[in-house]
């Protein structure tokens, strides 16, 4: 219920945050909204020795259009993204995804960067980013690099972030008017998805069907080959490795993946 003791420093700027990350112990963690990290620390599943607060760095907050991309600051809270007119017009799947994270209080604090860095395969935003074919801007001592969603989530709660790096922004293609679907299957309101599916532009991403969010590539291929939504959805579970827990066993997850994929392809939310 109470985190183990730690030191705290508020970064004064993004470069300052990078310096701190470089100079402090490897187990130093960034703190933005804290709504992925602090719950883990309160259960003592994580015990970093120092937290670097980047939550109020205005350079990391905000949503803007940049050519054919929407750029969202990494420390932008989910509520801001969910209610952004620009996001709802140009990337409604992403705005919708942000609107479903947790509950209103959580959405006032949790950030897109924090959620992506946490890389929970059952979470909304990693699945949404994968479906959209988005990417993240990562800043380290060596400068900025852009990492595509498919390359970003590398394992169970693992990303390709190196020590000393932070996400500064998230990029998604602007697709105003593109049809999209989103399905988040829960047993109870503010749960994580038992299984989730998001579809847009012939891309299908799944949540909680493996250690990372996954593309339903067999289903995508079937679509590209002219299959109907229902036919393609039959292949949604191929290539997935769903886990088992109190809510669902493997068979049921595979079944849900098929049903939810079909519904997402029918552009249902």
């Amino acid at each position, binding site marked *: *219920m*109470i985190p*183990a*003791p730690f030191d705290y420093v508020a970064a004064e700027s993004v470069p300052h945050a990078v310096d701190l990350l470089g100079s402090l112990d490897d187990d130093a963690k960034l703190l933005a909204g804290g709504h992925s990290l602090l719950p883990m620390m309160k259960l*003592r599943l994580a015990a970093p020795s120092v937290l670097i607060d980047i939550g109020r760095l205005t350079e990391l907050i905000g949503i803007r259009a940049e050519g054919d991309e929407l750029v969202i600051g990494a420390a932008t809270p989910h509520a801001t993204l969910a209610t952004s007119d620009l996001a709802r017009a140009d990337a409604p799947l992403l705005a919708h995804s942000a609107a479903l994270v947790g509950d209103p209080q959580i959405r006032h604090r949790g950030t897109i960067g924090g959620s992506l860095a946490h890389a929970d395969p059952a979470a909304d935003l990693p699945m949404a980013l994968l479906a959209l074919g988005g990417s993240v801007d990562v800043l380290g001592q060596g400068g900025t690099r852009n990492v595509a969603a498919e390359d970003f989530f590398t394992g169970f709660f693992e990303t390709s972030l190196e020590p000393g790096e932070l996400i500064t922004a998230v990029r998604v293609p602007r697709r105003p008017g593109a049809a999209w679907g989103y399905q988040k*299957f829960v*047993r*109870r*309101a*503010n*749960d994580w998805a*038992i299984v989730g599916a998001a579809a847009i532009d012939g891309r299908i991403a799944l949540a909680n069907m493996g250690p990372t969010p996954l593309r339903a590539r067999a289903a995508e291929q079937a679509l590209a080959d002219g299959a109907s939504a*229902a036919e393609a*959805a*039959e292949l949604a579970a191929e290539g997935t490795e769903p886990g088992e*827990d*109190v*809510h*669902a*066993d493997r068979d*049921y997850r595979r*079944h*849900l993946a*098929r*049903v*939810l994929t*079909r519904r997402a392809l029918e552009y249902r939310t």
Partner: protein
Amino acid sequence: MSILGTRVLRTEDPRFLTSGGVYTEDVVDERLAGAGHVFFVRSPVAHARIAGIDVSAALSAPGVVAAFTAADVADLAPIKPGPMFNQEMSRPILAADKVRFVGDPVALVVTEQAYQGEDAVELVDVDYDLLPAVIDLADAAADKVLVYEEAGTNVTANFGDSSALDGHLFDDCEVVTTRTILNQRVAPAPMETRAAAAAWDSDGRLTAWIPNQGAQGTKSGLARLLGVPAEQVRVITPDVGGAFGAKFGADPEHALVAWVARRLGRPARWTETRYENLIAMTHGRAQQQTVTIGGRRDGTVLAYRLEIVQDAGAHVRIGAMLPFLTILMAPGPYQIPRAEAIAKSVVTTTTPMGAYRGAGRPEATAAIERAMDLFAAEIGMDPAEVRRRNLLPKFTEPHRTKFGALYDTGDYAAGLDKVLAAAGYDELRREQAERRARGDTVALGIGLASYVEITGMGDGEESPPQENATVEVHPDGTATILTGTSPHGQGHATAWAMLASEELGIPVDKITLKWGDTDLIPEGGGTGGSRSLQHGGAAVQQASQELIEIARERAASELEANPADLRFDVERSAFEVAGDPDASVPLAHLAEEERLVVRTVFTAPGATFPFGSHVAVVEVDTETGKVVLRRMVTVDDAGFVLNPLLAEGQRHGGIAQGAAQAFVEEVVYDGDGNPLTASFADYPFLSATEVPSFELADMQTLTTYNPLGVKGIGEAGSIGATPAVQNAVIDALAYLGVRHIDMPASPQRVWQALRSAGGVRAIGVWGVPRGHCGPPG
């Protein structure tokens, strides 16, 4: 104008809304200054011998004042089960030789500051030699691995046994059906977890602040655990954030906090985390039930048998006894010519079972209501019609059932008819048929439950139930009531004030209620079993009336009149000489020279039996198995309704908890006894989005057992809602061949039932049903 029966707003609310309630953790008192904070080390394994405990690292941690294990508290006697149970199943207050469930307290640390506690607990090193967990009820009952070796068995009590069963019970039945069903384990999970604060004074007297459902029972429980005379203990009850049956008496942790305070010579306090609460506060329900029901094809039920295996958990507590009440209420509101029920309670390496809203009676209703629907399905009759044909006819004189319960008054058929009309039952059946005809993948289900339940039990007919009340009128025109009940959200401060106001003519907001301090109120039965209004409220009314009679004598002397010529004008709260309004004296004035106070005890003839019927309407997504509760329509008849606002609130809360058990909540253990639902993220605690607004119909069949005509309402909602919702889910899917789904009807459970019944094969991913849609031949 009578205030009884009106919607009076709660006098409690302004304080709760502005500064908030003062719960045990909030208590600031000079007697608790400098309190040490107590933290428990709990077993992370379900069953093991304790090979060793090393507290040395913890003792060196910052702020740690002390660390104690079983050896240190050897002066406290082991806790023995009640006399009806296997006496070898006693256990020490802190686990000594072995642990028997995940959460079993093994040691405790005391720190200067609250934040240091978890740091210190992590440093306590306990060596466990693992033993096989005892989780499966059949295995437990077969004594494969013993939870208490000295006991020689895992069966802690039998309530009748199979030799008493009549092998010919169903001989004359045209149709017999049987099923083993599960009334699953749930967590009471009040929003306030358990807590305690304790301080001893220089005379060796203990003051303990503990959230509870009856300070007097908590005091005697605490005294017994501590091995001290009861007079040495004072229990004070702060505001209590919900209890639902799980905060009766005294828990080991409460006693240990008091023990720490005595040992260290400084106050001590403790607040449970939610994790601890979900694994170490007692759980509810957990009965495996085999129901057998038989009768004629015309819908007449002729025979019913209920066989129960109660999971008692690792320690023998109230839960192990509850099958007694399940058996008592087994036949419910029905006239079944032949019925029998037996039970056994079995210990397992899981959280101990206690009382939980309804405590044994919801289990009885859930069983008979499921059986009624199974029977209805077997004979192809509408479940409402089957119930109507078997309900006991209306009675106004007490009716004794074959199980020994004396039902006071009842009109069960009227309740059923009323709820069916309120729900628009025929229209619902039409809509259901239409959906099926057009192959809608979202199935509509309509579920029924009719129930009767026992409230205000007391200790049986030999010692009838009773409660005391003290009412005092003060010279300034205010009044104070002392009650032996123990409200924790039920609104007694308002309700008891209404009752006193009715008699005394003093406004409700000038009447103060006190409870829960054993120095102030040494006797009382607390609040539980839906007893408070029918005993405690009746006592307040009686005391107020007796006070008026005493005041009448004083008024007579004051006015130099004959008491018989005096009239008490409630509107003015004054006595006047009949026919001469100017010759009057205010009630408050009569308290000036001598205290105007009465203590009375109200004794009821026995328990009362509220009843009702519920209709639940659900939608089931046949592709995913997800259940949505669309409507809950209920009749809950508990006699006269003193304050409809409060009564409705009790019904709402009960309905929500009852529905939650049917389709949302469950405690889950893995095969090794690890709890998998030990947080509010994992335990599917009901949120506002899972339930609709409820539709309550009003019906009041008064009892003759108290002048108010009231029965108990607190638990009724939870008793009817559970089987109504469960039956609704199964009803939704009956046309696909589903006959039963165990609770909770989680999406996976529903989907598996559809698969087994063949229904899912009939409905492909394409959403168009194939194959027949009627009930299986």
